[in-house]
């Protein structure tokens, strides 16, 4: 874990309300796939937890985030050469297993799966990325997964790009029978993933501290206990937490 200023190298819109920011920070060399950083947005009190999209080299990483409120809107208006205070990497991240894998991403849950795909490809494993979006204008990432050598299936709810329907529909239509899935996206999608497949899911949560101290982002376990999304997660085994 490191805390300090990171220089923005670029900050560009890549889809509807969706931005990719490249930052120069020594945090990059510590990041495992599926981990996140806490970003201090100027003028806002709490940090924003944002998952790491790619580690570009040992001093450069990229984040993809969605504008969902005033804080992320302000973040979208920052520019190259500005500095942001970054704290991380945080959380446990996705496991890198020595097996072929199916990645399932929904909307802004897609980004952490890109670095994850890169790690599996580095091991020579076959990766299938199933990406779900509301519509074509919200879609991103297809080319990037392809350039990593992944098979890619895109699904949109309105059918404006790829398969019309959910990621689960698309997986079944493609005749895929995944042994292990790694998934990140909205809770209804993760719930469907956990009902149909075994593997790991990454959760999003409102956080304060980001390191497990404040108990702001807990999830229940099936036995009535609790786990912290920021510290015990954000990645959990399917069935490990109540969704």
């Amino acid at each position, binding site marked *: *874990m490191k*805390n300090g200023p990171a220089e923005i190298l670029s900050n560009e819109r890549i889809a509807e309300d969706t931005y990719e920011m490249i930052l120069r920070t020594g945090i990059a060399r510590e990041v495992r796939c599926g981990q996140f950083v806490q970003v*201090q947005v100027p003028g*806002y*009190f*709490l*940090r924003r937890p944002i998952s790491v999209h790619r580690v570009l080299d040992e001093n450069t990483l990229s984040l993809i985030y969605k504008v969902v409120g005033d*804080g992320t809107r302000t973040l979208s208006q920052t520019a190259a050469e500005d500095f942001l205070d970054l*704290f991380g990497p945080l959380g446990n991240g996705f496991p890198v297993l020595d097996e072929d894998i199916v990645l399932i991403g929904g909307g802004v849950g897609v980004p952490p799966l890109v670095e994850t795909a890169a790690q599996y490809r580095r091991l020579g494993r076959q990766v299938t990325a199933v990406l779900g979006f509301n519509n074509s204008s919200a879609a991103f990432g297809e080319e990037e997964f392809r350039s990593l050598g992944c098979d890619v299936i895109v699904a949109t709810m309105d059918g404006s790009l790829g398969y019309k329907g959910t990621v689960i529909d698309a997986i079944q239509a493609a005749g895929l029978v995944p042994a292990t899935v790694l998934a990140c996206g909205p809770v209804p999608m993760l719930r469907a993933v956990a009902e149909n497949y075994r593997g790991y899911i990454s959760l999003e*949560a*409102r*956080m*304060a*501290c*980001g*390191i*497990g*101290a*404040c*108990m*702001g*982002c*807990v*999830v*229940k376990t099936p036995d*009535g206990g*609790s786990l912290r999304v920021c*510290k015990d997660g954000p990645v959990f085994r399917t069935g490990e937490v109540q969704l």
Partner: protein
Amino acid sequence: MIDLHVELPGLSLKNPIIPASGCFGFGREYAELYDLSRLGGIAIKSATPEKRFGNPVPRIAETPMGMLNAIGLQNHGVDYIIEHELPWLAQFDTEILANVAASTEEGYVEVIRKLNSSPVVKAYELNISCPNVKHGGAALGTDPVLAAHVTKMAKEAAEKPVYVKLSPNVTNIVEIAKAVEAAGADGLILINTLLGMRLDLRTAKPVLANNTGGLSGPAIKPIAVRMVWQCAQAVNIPIIGVGGIRTAEDVLEFLYAGASAVEVGAQNFVDPYACIHIIEALPAVLEKYGLSSVREATGRSLKQ
């Protein structure tokens, strides 16, 4: 050489900086970042008689210059804390304040009796001001008679000094402060969070699952300073100030108002090294204003 040392009932603080209860867990996460022995003390997360899950999520909402929380005293219960957390904390050279919460007066007494045997705990922080639980908490802390009664019971049970953490959600904080002093409190901790709320504009529903939550952060600092200043003139027991502290300058303001030491809360979430940054900056800030010790600064606004 600037003297940061502060002596308070039960507490020998090497500096006046104490992370606030609920904002620091039991220190384990922050111990990965720095040596907890550098802290004056640690106010550990509330201990209740039984394990509590706390409130549903969302528990956190941001506000201008602050945040709302409605955690709801999630903890593993006093027995677990005695068995697992306090022995671990024993390795650090810092003073541990145990925050005690319960839904009944008997519950406070039960937790204190159990904690009496721990050599790690140096003093109690009687939490009669949590705004996020239905019973106990602020229900006791907003009535001078009830506040005095639970303080008296806690004092009878306690074998260590009892500091009472007061709620700002009252018409007259001085009345409560005097009542708990008369009941035997060894010190005051001012203030807990202010009851607040946020609504989601799309759903027209509260952002927090608990509907309301406690407001903390820099937004509440002027209220906390005012309450410390008012109470410092009305009581003869020491005050630990808390509310929106971010910098060593903020600490000095609380000392001037009458605080002997301070707790740092939500800023730990913003800057995980907040307490260390403040401790490092404090000597130069005291020196800048012509002070050679923390003690000298305490109550300076009242001596003119």
